[in-house]
């Protein structure tokens, strides 16, 4: 572990835990002081502490998707503005997917941490913003390039005094967003989170000395690396392959394949996505940083114990590659807003590959889809934008049924309480929020259930926009388990059903009823091996119905 050998083991343990605690506090306060539902309820944000070279040391565990690649986007800032040129009050801001970012909605803030006149690290936060300009409120599903998706912020060095507190950049942003009350408030929450991280790191320097702190930062990365390598060593060497696909690009009906090959060699791994579909003209492409995040998240979740700090050291043994011009490494200016769908398929493809190497650790495919659902209305006092992220059923595992109605593994968004929606949005009402019986894939262990949300529009001129996936191609089961149900979205108007596609938008009228159905997870092992007691319980609880039971339940039970 190099220099860290000289560290006292107790100092090391204490300071490293304090750094992790500081990152956690930053994340918690980012969420708790935020304004938009997407940040405060869906918790679509993250916070981290970086060392002076921009390596991620500790991160708040909020959304797996945003973990792991903060260092990439930082690099494009520090290359333009070397740390020696920074002064107190400076900060970086960036959201450009083609400079290491994810999608435009994710805006990164970096604040340098000065101690005794030199930069010893950076505090970082990223948040998904509800509206960042672009062709439509909240979500422009028709965007054919990144310009139509919102305002692009290249790597910028700004100063709090000059550019933020009433300054030019703050005013520029305020003038370009549709819900400034929320977006500007969320920016402030990010800046506050960074201030908290900076304060905690300085306190640690004062308590333990800056040399010790810097040594611990290095040792903590080494520590994660050691643990990740130990996990990789435990897997048999080999090349494992898996494949899944995105339903379509929203224009044609053709599936978009995602191929992963995972090469395990000793204590390192290479994940390559050769064979994946070329980039598309709609927003389903994933910037390469997002691709890396999904690959790392999948390996970490499947192979290691959850308490390994997710920092730059954990990624050293892992290499991720994807062909330039593919959906997982697109060429500028391809649109990338709905990157999560292809990222989830990359996650599924890796999981299928790992199923060949470590069958008892993996899970079947879940619904594993980000369904981003927007209802918006322009009233006399401006735009009102409701955006919520929905998951579905989790895939079943070797020893367990999949979790019902929960966000997918690359994400972790909470739902917004119905009673909050009733208070905040007078233009629609949720009239049903229910589990979907029979949506789980059958198996020795069943997949998780999907669910249904129904909305009634209470005024005219409401716009619905959504992107989702697995409307055509269900979550497959594993080792003989069956597939879960697909999702759908439809509008009931004057007794007629109008189906929507998985990537779609339309104008709604007063009295329309929108049904959004999220799919279930795949089963694990043959359904014939499921215990009769569990089937009886599922029937009694209405999780599966008798109509649906025949091919999976012993006949005696069905007749009973």
């Amino acid at each position, binding site marked *: 572990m190099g220099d860290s050998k000289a560290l006292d083991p107790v100092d090391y343990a204490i300071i490293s835990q304090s750094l992790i605690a500081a990152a956690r506090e930053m994340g918690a306060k980012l969420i708790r002081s935020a304004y938009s539902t997407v940040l405060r309820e869906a918790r679509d944000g993250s916070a981290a502490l970086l060392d002076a070279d921009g390596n991620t040391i500790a991160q708040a565990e909020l959304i797996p998707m945003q973990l792991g690649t903060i260092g990439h986007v930082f690099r494009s800032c520090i290359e333009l503005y070397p740390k020696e040129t920074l002064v107190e009050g400076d900060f970086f801001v960036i959201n450009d997917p083609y400079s290491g970012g994810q999608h435009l909605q994710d805006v990164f803030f970096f604040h340098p941490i000065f101690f005794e006149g030199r930069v010893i690290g950076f505090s970082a936060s990223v948040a998904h913003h509800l509206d960042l300009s672009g062709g439509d409120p909240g979500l422009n599903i028709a965007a054919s390039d990144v310009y139509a998706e919102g305002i692009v912020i290249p790597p910028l060095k700004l100063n709090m005094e000059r550019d933020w507190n009433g300054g030019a950049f703050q005013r520029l942003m305020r003038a370009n967003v549709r819900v400034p009350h929320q977006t500007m408030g969320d920016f402030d929450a990010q800046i506050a989170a960074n201030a908290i991280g900076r304060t905690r790191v300085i306190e640690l320097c004062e308590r333990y000395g800056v040399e010790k702190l810097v040594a611990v930062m290095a040792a903590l990365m080494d520590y994660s690396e050691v643990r990740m390598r130990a996990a990789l060593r435990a897997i048999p060497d080999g090349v494992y392959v898996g494949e899944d696909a995105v339903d379509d690009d929203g224009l044609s009906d053709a599936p978009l394949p995602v191929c992963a090959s995972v090469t395990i060699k000793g204590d390192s791994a290479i994940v390559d996505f050769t064979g994946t579909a070329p980039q598309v003209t709609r927003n389903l492409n994933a910037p390469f940083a997002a691709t890396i995040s999904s690959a790392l998240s999948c390996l970490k979740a499947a192979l290691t114990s959850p308490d390994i700090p997710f920092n730059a050291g954990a990624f050293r043994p892992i290499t991720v590659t994807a062909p330039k011009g593919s959906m997982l490494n697109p060429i500028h200016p391809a649109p990338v807003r709905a990157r999560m769908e292809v990222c989830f398929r990359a996650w599924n493809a890796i999981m299928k590959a790992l199923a060949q190497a470590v069958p008892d650790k993996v899970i079947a495919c879940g619904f594993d889809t980000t369904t981003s659902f927007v209802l918006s209305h322009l009233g006399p006092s401006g735009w009102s934008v409701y955006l919520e992220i929905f998951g579905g059923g989790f895939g079943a595992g070797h020893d367990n049924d999949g979790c019902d109605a929960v966000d997918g593994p690359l994400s972790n968004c909470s739902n917004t309480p119905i009673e909050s929606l009733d*208070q905040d949005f007078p233009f629609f009402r949720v009239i049903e929020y229910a589990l979907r019986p029979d949506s789980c894939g059958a198996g020795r262990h069943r997949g998780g259930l999907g669910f249904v949300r129904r909305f009634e529009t209470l005024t005219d001129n409401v716009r619905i926009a959504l992107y989702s996936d697995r409307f055509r191609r269900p979550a497959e089961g594993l080792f003989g388990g069956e597939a879960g149900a697909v999702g759908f979205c439809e509008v009931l108007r004057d007794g007629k059903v109008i189906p929507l596609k998985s990537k779609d938008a339309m104008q709604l009228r007063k009295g329309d009823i929108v049904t959004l159905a999220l799919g279930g997870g795949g089963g694990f092992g043959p359904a014939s091996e499921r215990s009769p007691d569990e089937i009886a319980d599922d029937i009694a609880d209405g999780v599966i119905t008798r109509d649906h039971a025949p091919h999976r339940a012993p006949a005696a039970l069905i007749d009973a």
Partner: protein
Amino acid sequence: MRVGIEVGGTFTDLVAVDGSRVEVVKVPSTPASPDVGAFNSLTAAGIEPALVTDLVHGSTVATNAILERKGARVAFVTTRGFRDILFFQRHDRRNIYDLHYKKPMPPLRRRDCFEVAERVSSNGDVVLPLDTAEIERDLIPLLAEGGYGAVAVCLLSAYATPAHEAQVKALIGAALPKIRVTCSHEVAREFREFERATTTVLSAYVQPVIDGYLSRFETTLAAARFTGSFSVMQSNGGRLPAVAMRKNSITALFSGPAAGVVGAVRQAERSGRKDLITFDMGGTSTDVCLVVDGTPSVSPETEVDGLPIRTPVLDIVTVGAGGGSIVWIDDGGMLRVGPRSTGATPGPACYDRGGTVPTVTDAHVVRGTIRADAFLGGTMRLDVDKAHRAFEEVATKLGLSVREAAAAAIRLAVANIVRAVQLVSTERGRNPRDYALLPFGGAGPLLAAEIADELGVREIIVPPNPGVISAFGLLAADFVRVAGVTRRVVLSDDAPPVLREEFARFREAAEREFRGLGLDGALIFELTAEMRFIGQAFEIPVDIDPGRLPTLSAADLAEEFSAAHRRIYFHGGEPGRKVEIVGLRFGVRRPLDKLPEFRERASRVVNSGETTVWTGGSALSARLVDAATLVPGKATCGPAMVEGYSSTLWVPPGWQVERDNPGNLIMRKV
């Protein structure tokens, strides 16, 4: 005579006070029927129930009923379309990388959840009238057939108007008088349906258990010719007459940690200390609480077994660092302490009950701060060799000696507790240096000085008998009722009248209830506004002195909110950002007429002379002192070990300790 009996997982503690006479007893708990242990403690102390005027009881009966799923068979009734809210929960995962994630399990199944047609809006207007015919036709037969002992009713937006819930309750009550119906507006009149529904279900679930337990307890007391008052401890730090608790018992959960805080804080107040950080270190965990001006902080919500409970409780943060916490090295080579614990069996290696892994208690034995023949007042002998042997493997891996490894483990345990203290202080904008440390629990005083050193705290207050302070807390607790209500109002000139109106309503109901319970005397009222900037989802509590209500202005409230926001989030919001009140929290308190005396009980161990303590690799000769012999006016300098019946205080070099007139030990940095 006044008697407090606190039933814990392992021990049942009794504190009896009669004038200046103090009796302290610890007996083994009897988990199958905790009341047996409680009456055993009376017998062990030689107390005639007929002579007890005031009996206060705290137990884990409510908590265990939930943890062990031994509550009533409960049905859940909600608005049509929302049957599954108990299972959706918040649609998130507690551990983001767990592929085999399971949500916390509510204490019923999906088949026990029913719907009724109705809907009201967030301002209380009826959108869809309640279909009473359907309830009589469909719901009531299902409830009758299902064999339910309790029904929890939680309808959407019932916090705004309880009319539909009250109607459902009346219909079920008329048809099925034996089933007890609990409505959400009676338990937690606050918005956010999942949290309110779970609170209602858990309340309905434990209520028959508590009712049965207390009724049995009262019968036994009556048979022993007890004629005094009998009250029960709550998680909010107050007590209530048993008769009131039998009706609504959700506040009985986690009363034990709250009793400890109240006992320690009331006792410390006698020494004039009101700004305190309490820490209660037991066998498996440590509980930490911040106390400002004599008032422990309150949290609007807690959770049990992963399920949220929306009821105000003392804001106690728990970390997995106790005497039994395991010392280990993870697969990345890092030294760790906890959160796993050896529990009572097999226990630490030094207990010689088959445990072989090193624990914090073993580290103390190796270090010399727990003496083998003075543990638990000398009633349990420890095996020093086994403690040493348990540390060998960890020491080898770290390249340290056994003594150095034990010292490292203690420093790490200290660091874990320090982080918990930072969670309740620094993270909430409070500087721990402005507070005195108040350790209790069997293991608390052993680490107090080291924790204070890490935090920069210069004063430590140790109450008498720190190992049984929870039982004293029962006697020290005031009668308390708390309630919360969701009432959203933008902070403008309209807000103060709303506060006055809601407060008057609570005050009137509270006075009626307390007088009905025979609680005479002056009542003290408390008011807290839950506030946030419009658009935020999380509130910040702002305390308001009810005496200020007549002249309170919106500008005062805005200023206090902004200051609180700045303390926590490092900014007070941009100019002109609007603030709203989301909810109000009320408390009523009937103070005790007189706080009972509390004195150190004599230990049965001979403790004088010197003992060896190993710190930083070198041996120190520490003076041995009997806690009961420390008297005011005579300071003891460290290194010293102050041994008492229920706990030992370690006084390192550089610290000195002295007993003050109220009976507390005051330890200061020299």
